[in-house]
């Protein structure tokens, strides 16, 4: 089975995000970069399929030089090889341009199933997996929490409002992973050591034959407004009085009810 897992390098969830003064992006100084947690579910699922059916797991990642670390993390978990798409023309790529680059890198490879995270926790757009499937002309199931592969088809479970949807699909397909699919493994030390020697192909836009042109453009980064301090309801000492005051504030000040 040939399995592909797409990964993105994102700032750690706890990292302090500072927007650059000119609003052109975030200040990368002091940021700890990690593998997008949803992509990690994808990598883990890819590895489990490999363990079950045999085959190879290829990691595909778009990002600057630092993203190599994330590829190595996936290789340390047990993936076999990597493709690193590194081109300044693609650093600002939107979801479409990203998917296009990934599709170009994947096209030449044999694949039965492709994993993506359901979204990246930095820009939260959640589109790459679907666009990628569209560009490759294969089906996609998003937000998958359970996956059963059998022969040439797969049964994927995804949550919908108040229920579970079980979707059958033919292979090859794109699966976007979400929390609940599995518990990603902790890399073993021999895994980490071996990862250093596993092959990673570095490709630029020209080699992939993509222009890197985005359809959408970020106009400006603006930090969210500072959270206003909490309010303590003192107006009246009785529970009823407090409740009345709370309702009033929610309606008039917060305008949520």
């Amino acid at each position, binding site marked *: 089975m040939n399995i592909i897992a797409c990964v993105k390098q994102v700032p*750690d969830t*706890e*990292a*302090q995000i500072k927007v650059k003064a000119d609003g052109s992006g975030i200040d990368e100084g*002091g940021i*700890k970069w*990690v593998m997008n947690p949803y992509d990690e579910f994808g990598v883990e699922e890819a590895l489990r399929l490999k363990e079950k059916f045999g085959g190879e797991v290829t990691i595909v990642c778009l990002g600057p030089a630092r993203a190599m670390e994330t590829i190595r993390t996936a290789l340390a978990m047990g993936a076999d090889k990597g493709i690193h798409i590194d081109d300044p023309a693609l650093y600002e790529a939107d979801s479409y341009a990203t998917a296009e680059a990934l599709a170009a890198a994947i096209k030449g490879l044999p694949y039965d199933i492709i994993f993506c995270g359901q979204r990246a926790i930095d820009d939260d757009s959640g589109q790459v997996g679907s666009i990628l499937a569209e560009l490759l002309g294969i089906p996609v199931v998003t937000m998958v929490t359970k996956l059963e592969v059998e022969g040439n088809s797969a049964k994927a479970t995804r949550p919908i409002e108040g229920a579970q949807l079980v979707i059958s699909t033919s292979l090859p397909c794109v699966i976007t992973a979400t929390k609940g699919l599995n*518990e990603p*493994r*902790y*890399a*073993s*030390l*021999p*895994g*980490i*050591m071996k990862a250093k020697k596993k092959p990673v192909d570095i490709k630029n836009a020209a080699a992939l034959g993509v222009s890197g042109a985005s359809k959408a453009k970020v106009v400006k980064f603006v930090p969210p407004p500072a959270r206003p301090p909490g309010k*303590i309801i*003192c107006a009246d*000492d009785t529970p009823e009085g407090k409740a009345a005051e709370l309702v009033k504030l929610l309606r008039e000040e917060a305008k949520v009810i």
Partner: protein
Amino acid sequence: MELSHFKIGHEGREVFWNAEHFEPFLFFFTFIALVIFAYGLYRRWLIWSAIGKAEPEDRKSNWKVRLKNLVIDGLLQRKVLQDRYPGIMHALIFFGFLLLFFGAAFDATEFHVAEPLGFAFLTGKFYLFFSFLMDLAGLAILVGVFMALDRRYLSKPDRLGYRGKPDNTPDDAIALLLIAGIVITGFFIEALRIAVTWQQTPWEVWSFVGWTLASALNGISEPTARALHKGMWWVHTFLALGFIAYIPFSRLLHMITTPANYYMATLRPTGTIEPIRDFENAESFGVGTIEEFTWKQLFDSDACTRCGRCQEGCPAYLTGKPLSPKKLIQDIKTYWLEKAPAAIQAKKEELRAKMAAGEETDKCAKVLAFLDKIDQAIDKYVPARPETGEKALVGEVISLDELWACTNCMYCMENCSAAIEHVPKIIGMRQYKVLMEADFAPELQLTYRNMENNSNPWGVGSHLRGEWAKDLGIKTLAEDPNVEYLFYVGCAGSFDDRGKKVSIAFAKILQAAGVSFGILGSEEGCCGDSAMRGGNEYLYQSLAQANIEVMNGYGVKKILTICPHGYNALKKDYPHFGGNYEVYHHTEFIAKLISERKIKLKKSVADYVTYHDSCFLGRYNDIYDEPRKVLKAVPGLQLLEMERNLAKSFCCGAGGARMWMEEHGERINDARAKQAIETGAQTIAVGCPFCLTMMSDGLKTHGKDETMNALDIAEIVWKAMDLEEEKPPVDVCKT
């Protein structure tokens, strides 16, 4: 036989009385016993060395210190005697035996050397004293043996078993009965001799046991006595020689291995773990198979006497976890004994091959070849033990629940009467699970990821590390690298709300005392102790190296810590990686400030306080007095001690990465909090932020969080300094 040359003033006795012609036989049988003894030892050595790998730690140099350990703990029984009843029991047998052994040696020297050369020394007053002493020794042994029989078969304390099931083996009874038998037959021989000769040798009254027994035999005819004496003489001899031959094949082996273990005991600071040096090229990490233990680690388990001292204070065992340090050591031993025949076979093959190839030509190899021949001969008659099925060392022989229950509290090692090193074995096996198999508790995996990404176990953004100090006017080293002390705050002091209060209290004390200090702020990282003790040596070293790089970059020389884990790591483990600092724990430092009168404690804080000894302060670093001194300096404070304190203190349950893992069943911190509550104190004083959390939680469990509290010593001291008005809780609606 005439006794002419023994008379009053020249008291003495004939050594081979009534046994004149036995001597050649005696020599013959002694020789056989010694051969069996030597062979048994060699066989044992073959097993340790055939299975275990080379020992990286130096166990030989510094012989003076080693000899001292051997004398104090092996010969003078310091550790053994720390436990009253069993200590006395063992000492009676041990010293009794030692005396009898020297007595026999004296006898032999007298007979074979001194007498023929004409300077017999076992005469006169000395003989009387000698006789008295020998009888006393025999009596002591008997008392000791009865005490031992009582412990093993009547009073049966839990520590001589596992969860109420005694772990007695036939060997225990055989050993005790052999000892008793030797002494009793010895007394009878003496008595029968006295029964015949007492009229000529009235001084034999000094052999008071034999004399009393002889009086009881009053009226026995001389021929009967002589015949009985001869028979008894042989019984005695065979028991004694049998004892010698039995040593290597029984628990008696500890007579050799335990003192040897004292001699080889680690001389490194308590709790030091041999760092893994070569991550790049090593094939495997940690201990996954019995062969990955060093020979010394296997030897260790042959020095274990199953005394149970370790088990008696193991917090995991006492709260119902499957781990018992004694059982762990014994299970390892049983396992390598099972593996022994195959391992010995392999070792022999290897030696044969080497000798055939002419590679081994040194003397040692020749001796081995010779012994090998003996072995081959014996193997013909002794069928090999059937090999039992393959079992995994980690997971089967030692269950994962046992492996992960250990808090690294060091009780076992500190109190072991045989210098056995349990904790490195446990960490070794954890390393295997974590580094090789990456198979360990999910909550601990999360902790390690947090430590990787944000350099703290909680996973709070590392940029927030210095936040606690924001309004205190504390400089970072980046702002002023010329301060005298670096206050290494650690993760709990930086991120945990309760811990932050301790950091603040200590910082204020330092400021009030005019100490020049600074912090690293967001440049500080996790010390790595939880990673190292949880088997993640790789993560630990990367954290340690990051800290060392920063600290060496600022030329840090002196460090203050509020966390005993950081204290221990920085002080004792960082030197492995080029971090050499003078490190002080805050309780030490506050004690110093008080004695130098740099701070004054004016206000009373609590009337009754009990102090909980943190493992990493007490057993790991011998800091027992300073925290108590500080507490006693607080006006009106009365210190109440828990029963388990000092070196026998009971862990809070947080060490050895346990802080970050789920605990099932009775919780260690609850058990400890209960012990603290029983003292009647209002406050549990601690010197460790993890103990602080554990004790606070324990008080909650017991519903005592309203009436009692847990405070760090720094908090108590800061309150007692009375420099800050205590603000009553603010009623927000009234302002």
